[in-house]
């Protein structure tokens, strides 16, 4: 690879600082006692503790999945702390009482925690290590009946809703990391949109891992009642450590009749250094259930961080005429590994799904798309269109596509298109011969490549995502 390309893809991580703040961390290790301790710290009701213990007991019987196309040393689950919270002196009544050190952290990250400074029209929930620090715009959302709060608050204030939907999309024993999350999850976001309400603003959660030896296990649950609409965005960063940290989240979405949920992610966890030391293991289960007729769930993700990414945001299309969408840009550099994609499970009649996946690999990274399209026996006239494109930068990286298609109904139409391209010396020379330098050329090529996905992001975040990809790839041209 030329030095021009090499310099272009070497860009330092800008969120890698550690906040010096006193934390309440439980000792490393996992057992029923630890789970009981977490549950007690959070003053949880008995049914939730039972949910955790059931998940834990199931987890003990499970094995880590070996099928992903990623390599990493065996994780010692007893060497992780499962709870870490910034020590609060007392219960917070307003934002003004938040530890100024925390406020500075999020200011540095560009996350608005003060409502008056917040991006107009975006409500933010902030999760620092294991707990939710603050949720903005609660009042305004409450006026239209939208509940947007931390998961712990939801358990306290809306137990009937949480109990009804928790585990209804991702059951406690669903998969190894999902079960682990169900056993030890500490906080996350909860969102409930009542019947017929179009959520008046974008909802956003910002996740930050700060402590070196803690894992982050958050749980997000979004329920959209009949005829409602919500657009939701999550962002994530973490400090640089030379050890790996585990992030095993679960996100559950439920869309009832005629409801629509749009879920967007800009993931920028620390990816490790250029030698592959450190970085987050991002092992996440995300699934949406289109339970009602004409319901729609749309996942859009821009994945740029993490040492290893293992996630398949999925849609179960149960209701007739339900629509599932998955738009993804996954960029890997240096020694990053990504095995990501989606599952579209068609159960209802006339269900439709669209998959657009753009993988970009640079350095010595490895980027795999893995996707399942399953058409059930009763899914008459189901349709799917998948498009998986890979782009290689340099000649030491890899791209793979693993599409799985299972069709049990002969009226289904399933299409799969795939392509692989490469930013080559010759393309850069062509740009150069027209006066355009390598940095601008690469950014133009990448933006063109990702256009179909970026247009799906909410406006502000499309700009952010474009910038983020630029940062990941830009550098001094030499």
């Amino acid at each position, binding site marked *: 690879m030329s030095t021009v390309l090499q310099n272009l893809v070497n860009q330092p991580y800008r969120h890698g600082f550690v906040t010096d703040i006193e934390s309440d961390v439980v000792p490393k290790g996992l057992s029923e006692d630890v789970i009981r301790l977490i549950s007690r710290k959070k003053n949880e009701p008995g049914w939730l503790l039972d949910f955790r213990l059931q998940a834990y007991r199931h987890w003990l019987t499970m094995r880590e999945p070996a099928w992903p196309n990623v390599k990493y040393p065996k994780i010692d689950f007893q060497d992780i702390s499962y709870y870490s919270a910034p020590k609060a002196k007392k219960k917070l009544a307003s934002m003004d009482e938040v530890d100024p050190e925390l406020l500075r952290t999020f200011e540095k990250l560009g996350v608005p925690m003060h409502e008056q400074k917040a991006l107009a029209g975006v409500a933010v929930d902030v999760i620092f290590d294991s707990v939710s620090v603050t949720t903005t715009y609660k009042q305004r959302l409450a006026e239209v009946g939208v509940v947007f709060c931390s998961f712990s608050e939801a358990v306290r204030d809306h137990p009937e809703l949480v109990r009804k939907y928790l585990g209804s999309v991702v059951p406690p024993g669903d998969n190894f990391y999902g079960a682990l999350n169900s056993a030890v999850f500490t906080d996350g976001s909860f969102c409930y949109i009542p019947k017929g309400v179009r959520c008046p603003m974008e909802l956003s959660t910002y996740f930050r891992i700060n402590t070196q030896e803690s894992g982050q296990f958050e749980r997000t649950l979004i329920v959209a009642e009949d005829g409602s609409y919500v657009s939701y965005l999550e962002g994530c960063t973490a400090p640089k450590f030379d050890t790996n940290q585990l992030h095993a989240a679960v996100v559950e979405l439920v869309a009832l009749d005629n409801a629509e949920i749009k879920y967007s992610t800009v993931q920028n966890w620390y990816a490790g250094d250029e030698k592959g030391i450190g970085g987050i293991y991002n092992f996440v289960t995300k699934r949406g259930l289109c339970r009602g007729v004409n319901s729609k769930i749309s996942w859009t993700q821009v994945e740029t961080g993490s040492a290893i990414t293992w996630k398949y945001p999925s849609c179960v299309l149960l209701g007739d005429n339900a629509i599932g969408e998955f738009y993804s840009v996954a960029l890997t550099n240096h020694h990053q590994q990504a095995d990501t994609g989606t599952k579209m499970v068609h159960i209802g009649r006339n269900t439709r799904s669209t998959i657009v996946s753009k993988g970009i690999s640079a350095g010595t990274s490895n980027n795999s798309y893995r996707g399942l399209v399953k058409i059930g026996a009763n899914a008459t006239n189901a349709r799917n269109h998948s498009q998986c494109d890979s782009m290689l930068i340099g000649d030491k990286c890899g791209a793979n596509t693993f599409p799985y298609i299972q069709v049990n109904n002969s009226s289904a139409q399933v299409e799969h298109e795939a392509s692989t*391209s490469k930013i080559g010396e010759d*393309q850069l020379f062509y*740009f*150069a011969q*027209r006066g*355009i330098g390598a940095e601008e050329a690469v950014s*133009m090529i990448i*933006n063109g490549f990702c256009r179909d996905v970026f247009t799906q992001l909410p406006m502000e975040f499309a700009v952010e995502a474009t910038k983020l990809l630029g940062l990941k790839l830009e550098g001094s041209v030499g």
Partner: protein
Amino acid sequence: MTDKVLLEVRGLTAKVAGIEILKGIDLSVRSGQVHAIMGPNGSGKSTFAKVLAGHPDYEVTGGDVLFEGRDLFDRTPEERARAGLFLGFQYPVEIPGVTNSSFLRLAYNTVQGARGRDELDPLEFDDYVQDKLKLLDMDPAFLERSVNEGFSGGEKKRNEILQLAILEPTLAILDEADSGLDIDALRIVANGVSRLRLPDNAVILVTHYQRLLNYITPDYVHVMDEGRIIKTGDKELAVELESRGYDWVADEYRSRQAA
């Protein structure tokens, strides 16, 4: 007419992948002139064009080149382009996902900026580009397609000439601008180039066949063989080459060297 030397090549040698391809080229191009460089396959014509533009695969091993009186080789490929040196590619590269219009505008504005002239916003640029499209008899829908992606051979070549028309370089080096063109496309490309001939600029046509020279009359015709210019003449030489082939020129050169 300001008749000045645009390009001065002296004793240029260059290699690719360790093999010497150019073995000492001398050439002087003045403003207002058209030079044709002809020769058999593998004679080094395309290498010469790419070396001038700064292709990273080629290593200059000797000689020097002045472009408008300044050393060419101490400049990067993009600096050469901004200074007014244009290479029309023999095999234009496809750039999926990048529209022709955004590519052309970025190229235009970059070159304009380097010349200290105003850049054009998308609307102004659209007006500018529509005139150029007419000149080359090209469909405006062309602008919304990805750069060269899925273009026919003729469309790719026309797109190169469109870029030439838009960027208005001082020195245009057109590498096999006529290869793969049917007779209509050839006429359109040739007319486009002819109309872009100005007293202040110059054109180097690298070509295997004489047929392009029926439309664009060169001031000089050079024959290249084994990395050297072995004969220079006027447009009659091209006609002679068409009927007699290249071998006699090489024989003549060898007997001259032996003498």
